[in-house]
C-alpha cells in the first residue's frame, strides 16, 4: 500500500497527529507494533494535564505544554473523553521548598501559565483537608487537570480512522528503505510505502530513527511505578498534589483519576529494557511512603492494582520535534516525556505544520472532528437506562459488576472503528475488569463476547495480543 504519511506508533502522540493530518487530503497509515493503540507510555502514566510551570522558559516543552493544556478541555469534549479541570498543588514542606514554589511561580508566569497563586497553610488545608500537617504552603495552578490518557488515545485513533486513516496493528517496523522519493517500511512480512514518516514510537524512537541511519537520538526508558486505590478513598485528594520537583521528575503525586480512584506515583528509575514494565515490591512501598508525606492517612489496604509505565527520556532534555538531519521526509517526534500528554494536542498541530510546509495539502470538506462519547451506562439516570435498553437489549445485561458495564458497551468497544481485539483493549475502552474484583467475574464473559464478535474460539482470545493467550486447549 502507498501512503502519503506513515505515523509510526499509536500512542497519544501518534494518534493525535494522525487525526490532525486526517483533516487534509492525505493518505495516512497509523502503524502500531502492538495489538492495540495506547500500549506504551500512553497507557501507564500520571494522567495529568500539567499547568506548564515546570519546563524551562523558551523550551519546546514550555511552549507546547501551555498551548496543549489550553487546547485540552475542548479537544476532550470533541472526542468524548473525560477531562476534569481540577487544578494542581505543589506542596512545600520546608522553607527551602517554599523558595522553590516562588521560583516555579515565576517560571510559570514567564511560560504564560494562567492563574498561579501561592496558598498558605490555611488555604491549602481548606483545599485539601487530608493534607499533611507538615505542609507549609503550596503553589496552586487552576489550569491543570486530569484526563484518561488511553481513552484520549483511543478516541483520537478512532476519529482518525473514521476520517480515513488506516490503522495497522501488529506491524512492528523493522526495516525502512528510501528510494530518493518515498520510504518502504517493512515488518519483515509486509511492506507499506510512504512519502513521509512520522516517528512517534515513544521509547523506541531511537531505534526507528536508526533504521534510516539517524543515530542522533538516544532514548532512556525511565520507569515509573504507580498504585491505584479504590474509589472508596477517592476523596482523599481533591486536586493533583505534587511534591517539590527534583532532577528525576516531578516526584510522587497523589491525584484523583477521572474515574474517581486515587492514583499514587510514579517512581523514576532509568532502566535498559524497553519492554520492562514489571513492578517491584520495594519501589512500590517507597512510593507509598513518599505519598504519605503528602497525605499521611494512605494505606496499602485500599490498593486495587499497581502498574509501571516507561517515559521516553531523551538526552536533549527537551522534546525533539523536527525533520531528521538524515532525511527531511522523516520527522522525529522524540523525547516525549512529561509533559507529553499535556502537550499532545499542541504537538499534533506543530507536526501538522511541519508536514504541510513541505507537502501542501487541501483541507477535506467532509472531515468530522467529533467522536461521540461511547455509551456509559454507569453515568446514566434510570430514565435514560430504560430508554437505552428498550432501544438495544444488550445494554440490559451487566457484564462487569464492579463498574456496572453492560454487554452493549463491550460490543460497542469491539465493533468500534479500530475496536478492541483483546481483553485489555475492552478494559481500556469500557472499564470492564478495572474495578475491585479486577476481572474475576467478568473476565470470562469478556473473553466469550470477544470470541463471539471476532468469530474465533475462546482460546484464541488474548489479554493484550501476541502470546498473551488466556486459555489453552479444550479439556476434552
Amino acid at each position, binding site marked *: 500500500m502507498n501512503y502519503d504519511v506513515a505515523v509510526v506508533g499509536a500512542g497519544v502522540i501518534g494518534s493525535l497527529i494522525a487525526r490532525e493530518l486526517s483533516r487534509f487530503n492525505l493518505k495516512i497509515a497509523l502503524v502500531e507494533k502492538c495489538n492495540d493503540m495506547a500500549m506504551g507510555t500512553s497507557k501507564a502514566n500520571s494522567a495529568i494535564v500539567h499547568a506548564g510551570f515546570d519546563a524551562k522558559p523558551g523550551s519546546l516543552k514550555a511552549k507546547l505544554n501551555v498551548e496543549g493544556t489550553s487546547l485540552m478541555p475542548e479537544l476532550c469534549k470533541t472526542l468524548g473523553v473525560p477531562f476534569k479541570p481540577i487544578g494542581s498543588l505543589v506542596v512545600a514542606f520546608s522553607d527551602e521548598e517554599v523558595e522553590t514554589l516562588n521560583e516555579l511561580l515565576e517560571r510559570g508566569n514567564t511560560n504564560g501559565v494562567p492563574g498561579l497563586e501561592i496558598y498558605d497553610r490555611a488555604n491549602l488545608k481548606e483545599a485539601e483537608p487530608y493534607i499533611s500537617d507538615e505542609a507549609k504552603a503550596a503553589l496552586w495552578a487552576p489550569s491543570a487537570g486530569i484526563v484518561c490518557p488511553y481513552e484520549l488515545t483511543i478516541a483520537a485513533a478512532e476519529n482518525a480512522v473514521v476520517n480515513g486513516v488506516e490503522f495497522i496493528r501488529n506491524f512492528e517496523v523493522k526495516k525502512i528503505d528510501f528510494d530518493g522519493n518515498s520510504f518502504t517500511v517493512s515488518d519483515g512480512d509486509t511492506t507499506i510505502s510512504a512519502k513521509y514518516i512520522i516517528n512517534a514510537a515513544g521509547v523506541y524512537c531511537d531505534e526507528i530513527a536508526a533504521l534510516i541511519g539517524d543515530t542522533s537520538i538516544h532514548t532512556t526508558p525511565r520507569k515509573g511505578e504507580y498504585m491505584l486505590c479504590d474509589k472508596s478513598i477517592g476523596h482523599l485528594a481533591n486536586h493533583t498534589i505534587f511534591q517539590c520537583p527534583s532532577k528525576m521528575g516531578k516526584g510522587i503525586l497523589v491525584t484523583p483519576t477521572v474515574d474517581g480512584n486515587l492514583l499514587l506515583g510514579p517512581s523514576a528509575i532509568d532502566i535498559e529494557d524497553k519492554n520492562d514494565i514489571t513492578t517491584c*515490591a520495594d519501589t512500590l512501598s517507597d512510593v507509598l511512603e513518599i505519598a504519605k508525606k503528602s497525605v499521611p492517612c494512605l494505606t496499602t489496604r485500599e490498593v*486495587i492494582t499497581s502498574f509501571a509505565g516507561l517515559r521516553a527520556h531523551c538526552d536533549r532534555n527537551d522534546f525533539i520535534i523536527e525533520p531528521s538531519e538524515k532525511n527531511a521526509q522523516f520527522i522525529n517526534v522524540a523525547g516525549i516525556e512529561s509533559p507529553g500528554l499535556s502537550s499532545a494536542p499542541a504537538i499534533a498541530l506543530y507536526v501538522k505544520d511541519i508536514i504541510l510546509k513541505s507537502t501542501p495539502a487541501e483541507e477535506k470538506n467532509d472531515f468530522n472532528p467529533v467522536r461521540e462519547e461511547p455509551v456509559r451506562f454507569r453515568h446514566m439516570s434510570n430514565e435514560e437506562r*430504560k430508554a437505552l435498553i428498550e432501544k438495544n437489549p444488550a445494554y440490559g445485561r451487566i457484564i462487569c459488576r464492579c463498574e456496572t458495564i453492560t454487554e452493549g458497551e463491550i460490543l460497542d468497544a469491539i465493533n468500534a472503528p479500530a475496536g478492541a481485539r483483546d481483553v485489555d483493549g475492552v478494559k481500556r475502552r469500557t472499564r470492564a475488569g478495572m474495578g475491585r474484583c479486577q*476481572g474475576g467475574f467478568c473476565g*470470562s464473559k469478556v473473553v466469550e463476547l470477544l470470541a463471539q464478535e471476532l468469530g474465533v474460539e475462546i482460546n484464541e482470545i488474548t489479554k493484550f495480543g501476541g502470546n498473551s493467550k488466556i486459555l*489453552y486447549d*479444550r*479439556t476434552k
Partner: protein
Amino acid sequence: MLNYDIVVIGGGPAGMAAALKAKECGVDSILILERAETLGGILEQCIHTGFGLHYFGEELSGPEYADRFIQLVDEQKIEYKTDTMALEITENNIVYAINKTDGLLEIQAKAIILAMGCRERPRGALNIAGSRASGVMSAGTAQKYVNIDGYMPGKKVVILGSGDIGLIMARRMTLEGAQVKCVCELMPYSSGLTRNIVQCLDDFNIPLHLSCTVVNIHGKERVEGVTIAKVDENRRPIPGTEEYIECDTLLLSVGLIPENELTRAVGINLDPVTSGAVVDEYRETSHKGVFACGNVLHVHDLVDYVTLESQTAGEGAARYVLGKTEAAEYITTKGVNGVRYIVPQKVNIRNSGDVKLYFRVGQVYKNAKTVVKYNGEEIISKKRPRLAPGEMENVIIKNDMLKNFAEGGVIEISVEV
C-alpha cells in the same frame, strides 16, 4: 412499578433457601433476582463432592446440591428472573434491576433479602510485584473455565493460597492433565479442610509450602515463572529464601470478600470484621425490612450452614411482612480473646425461640474451650479439641437463658486455652 412482598437478590443457595422458607411461612408474593443465566450461584461450577453432608446427610456435588433447591423453587412456583442484575435498593425498599427482556425494573418490596454472595480477592490486593503477563487468575475464574467452559487455563501451575478453592483446583487441574508445581500459603497453617489437604494435595504429591508467598511474577506476554519466598512471623518475605519456579499459570486463592456494594450504597451498617451487614438473630440489617444471609453476610465454609442461615433470614422476612415481629429489646454480641466475630451481632431478647450464634476464631487451637459470658459472667463453656479459622463454630443460647437478659446487655464469646 412491580410490587412484591419479598424481593430476594441472588438466586444461589442462600437466596433460594431464604425464598423457600419465606414461602413456607406463608408469604406468596416472592421474586428472586439472579444475575447469572441460571439459579444455583457459585455451586454450578463447584463440581467436586462434599456438599450436603450436614443438611441432606449425603455427599453431593455443588450442582446437585443446587438442583435440589432449584426443583423446590419450581415446585413451589416461586417467581425468579435470571440474567437480571439489581443495581440499586432505595431507602423505601424499592429495587432497581435490569435485564434484556424487561429492561429497567422498578420493584417495590415490603422486605428485601440480600443474598449476593461474595467475590474473590484479586491480585492487586496482594501487590505481588512483577509483570502483568497473561496467566494470573483467581482460582474461581479457573474453576469456571475448566468445569463449565471446558478449557484449560494453564499447564504448569502454581497456586497461591491454601483455602479450599485453591486446594480443590490443585486436584482439578491435576486430574485434567496439568502439572501443579506447588501450593504456597502465607500463613503457618492452611485455612483449608484437612480432608482437602490430604485428598487434593497429598494424593497427588503436590507440595504445600506454609509461611511462603509469591514475591515476583515473570514473563512478558504469558507467565513464564514465579519467584516464591519464605515469610517471617510478620508475613514479610525473608531475603535469601527466594526460589524460582517455572510455570505458565498462577492461580490465586487468597480470600473471599462479601459483595456488599448495594448494601453499602443504601447506608446499611457493616461489620468491619465480616465485611457484611450487622444483623439481628433473624438476619435483619440496620435498615428495616432488609435482611441478609449467606456469603454476603459473612463467608461460610460449608453451604449447609448457608442454607440454615438463609432459612432463618427467610423466616425473619416472612414474619416482618406478615406483621409478626415482636417489639425489640437488643443485647449485643462480641467476639473477644481469639474470637474474630460473631453473627448475629445483636439479639432481640423478646424472641420466643432459641438463638444460635455463629463465630470464627483467628488461629488454630488444640484442646481449648469456648466460653460464653453474659455481662462478664460465664454462662456456657464448651470443650473443643480443635478450633481453626477455616471452620465456623456455633453455640446455642436457649430461650430461657435469653429471657433472663436485659436490654443493652453484652454476650461475649472467647477462646480459653
